[in-house]
């Protein structure tokens, strides 16, 4: 029987409800990011570079686009005969078929899938973080330490620490305490939601957890505290580098802006750690006679005739003559009409901004009918396929729905 040293399971079923209209029709891992990627490209590419060739992607919320996107895994070199990428939706079985109740339950329901590969270890990942990480090194450490579970942690600002699951460790990196969103954190080592379990340990805890009717079936709330209480060997693996949870409109916008700093906070132009993505056979981009592009990234299929500064322009975007785009994220296929001005905005897939429209220029006001709690810090969000009419004035902080 085939035996895999490590199989990865990516939790990609979440809605990402704080992304507002961006995740109305797609799951958060399928949200476009960084010009030509989707969020899920990051964990998938990390897996391949880490030598992990068997990846289950657990989908639930609005899975169609994500399922099609992953397909047979070929863009990530995961179309393998022995392993590869598999989309794992919830399924009916006997009398009990049910939705994924929590992160732990989602993995529990796929024990049958994992058994097929007879894994020694299982890597649990979240499908909604932006980072480059060598899981192989973490796996080596996990094996060398003979840990029951190894949890990736990274130092965060002390101020921020209360938003995370915080790991307190001894001098050898053994986890002694775990606190979910503590008011007075004792350490600033935050869990990144990246776990490597010994498979037999994982299976035991998932099975026990499933029998507990009181459990929320969640790794952070149930599995990890239970293992700690049982005295299992739990090791913290320190990660240093860029890592971002793009769970809100603001953090998604910020993470995109991080790519265009000079030098960038997060570098995607790194041939040693290429982020793979599904390719759509688009021509190179064309920069017109009247265009001016600075401090920005532009990708395939775009036709730019306007002015672009400090922005991330995704594929097949059209920016008309005299248009000005600043501090913005323009997702695939969006059209910015001639003379339109777009500032500090996230423009969704195939949205249309009419000629001479103003988006994110006028100041915020309390009586703006488009005001939305999702749009903090004055960022404007225009949903995919939505249209802003010619000449319309959309103030800062608006969310425009399709």
């Amino acid at each position, binding site marked *: 029987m085939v035996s895999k040293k490590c199989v990865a399971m990516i939790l990609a079923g979440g809605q990402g409800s704080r992304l507002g209209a961006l995740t109305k029709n797609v799951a958060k891992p399928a949200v476009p990011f960084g010009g030509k990627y989707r969020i899920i490209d990051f964990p998938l590419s990390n897996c391949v570079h880490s030598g992990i060739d068997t990846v289950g992607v657990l989908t639930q919320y609005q899975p169609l686009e994500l399922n099609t996107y992953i397909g047979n895994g070929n863009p990530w070199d995961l179309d393998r005969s022995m392993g590869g990428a598999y989309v794992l939706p919830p399924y009916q079985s006997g009398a009990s078929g049910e939705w994924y109740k929590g992160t732990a339950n989602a993995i529990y329901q796929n024990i049958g899938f994992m058994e097929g590969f007879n894994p020694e270890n299982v890597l649990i990942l979240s499908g909604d973080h932006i980072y480059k990480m060598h899981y192989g090194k973490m796996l080596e450490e996990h094996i060398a330490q003979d840990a029951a579970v190894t949890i990736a942690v990274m130092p965060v600002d002390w101020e921020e620490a209360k938003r995370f699951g915080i790991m307190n460790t001894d001098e050898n990196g053994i986890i002694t305490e775990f606190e979910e969103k503590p008011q007075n954190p004792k350490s600033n080592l935050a869990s990144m939601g990246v776990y490597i379990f010994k498979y037999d340990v994982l299976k035991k805890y998932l099975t026990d957890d499933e029998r507990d009717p009181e459990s929320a079936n969640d790794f952070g709330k149930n599995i990890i505290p239970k293992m700690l209480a049982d005295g299992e060997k739990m090791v913290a693996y320190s990660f240093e580098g860029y890592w971002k949870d793009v769970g809100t409109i603001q953090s998604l916008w910020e993470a995109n802006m991080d790519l265009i700093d000079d030098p960038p906070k997060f570098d995607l132009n790194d041939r040693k750690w290429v982020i793979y993505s599904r*390719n759509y056979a*688009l021509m190179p981009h064309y*920069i017109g006679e009247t265009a001016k592009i*600075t401090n920005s*990234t532009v990708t395939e299929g775009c036709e730019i005739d306007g002015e672009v500064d400090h922005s991330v322009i995704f594929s097949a975007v059209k920016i008309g003559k005299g248009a000005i785009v600043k501090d913005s994220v323009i997702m695939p296929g969006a059209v910015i009409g001639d003379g339109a001005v777009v500032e500090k905005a996230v423009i969704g897939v195939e949205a249309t901004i009419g000629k001479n429209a103003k988006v994110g220029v006028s100041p915020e006001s309390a009586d703006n009918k488009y005001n939305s709690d999702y749009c903090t810090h004055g960022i404007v969000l225009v949903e995919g396929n939505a249209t802003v009419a010619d000449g319309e004035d959309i103030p800062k902080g608006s969310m425009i729905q399709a």
Partner: protein
Amino acid sequence: MRNDTMGIILTGDEKISPLTDIRANSALPVAGRYRIIDFVISNMANAGIVNVGIATESNYSSLMDHTRSGKPWDLDRKNSGLQILPPNLEKEKFGVIKGNIDLLAGIRDYIHRSTETYVILSLGNMVYNIDFAAVVKQHKAQQADITVVYKDVNGMEEADLSHYTLLDIDGEGCVTDIEVQPYYPKTTNASLEIFVMEKALLESIIDECSARGDVDFVKDAVIKKMDGMRIFGYKFDGHIYKVDSMKTYYQTNMQFLKEDRRKELFNRKRPIYTKTKDQSPTKYGADAKCTNSFISDGCVIEGTVINSILSRGVKVAKGAVVKDSIIMQNSVIEPDVEVSYVVFDKEVTITKGRKLIGQENYPLAISKGSVI
């Protein structure tokens, strides 16, 4: 139902030094991220053809490296798919390929083994976007023996016209006369060297010509057999560019700066596919000035780029000016460099402050990996 047409792409060895020293002509980078052969392979794939053979003459490792399994064109199939056919050096006649019949004779077994009824024959070094399904449909409707795709090049200088094979075509679309590169052109219907016929006919032509020592498909087979056959023209109204010299290479690339050409050659109905390299988006710096240019992914542009075509991963440093040029993959233009009318092959580096100026009708080509 399985598609009943197969495609054969003939890749010649027209030399465009120094660019073809290391690769087949059909494997030349064009329009930034493509190779010339991408156009014909995509045309065939877009017509639903699943059996494509590429007959090669020399430097074919460049083509193999590019096409690999045929995946980008969805031609990695269990049955047939895309195949590179190296020249058959075993047969005694080979050594020098004197004409396209020699090339076809070398792949005679492959043609024979294929199970399709019809065959499209085309060249690998032409940039065009055609609906091959429509060509085959017309061929069948007219019950033609051979269909020749042509273009009315009305308006072309007589001297240029003399480079083409010209067709006399009657009101029914029937080809009544063919002249190869005539000194005094009688018509403006230029053959595009694209033919459709039954596979069995092609096989008999190859066998007959080989037996007689004939080498040219048009002169020795089609023209000689004209009286007994139904030869029809298929009029192609789009743009088509054959790349067989440095001048045509340069001009073909520059077509992509025109909006109507981009719309035609990269239309949504029939996409052009190519091998992907997963480059990150192109980055423009604070002082970048870029106008009227066609830019691939993975570039870093901090200087000025005007009227140019950039392949993937090109770096243009601050203060550098690139004008009217074609810069291939991973070339580096250092600070304060000035280049115009140049063609840089892959991985060329031009060091700080240097100048290199070619002319529009004579662009300056620099070979792969050079450091200036």
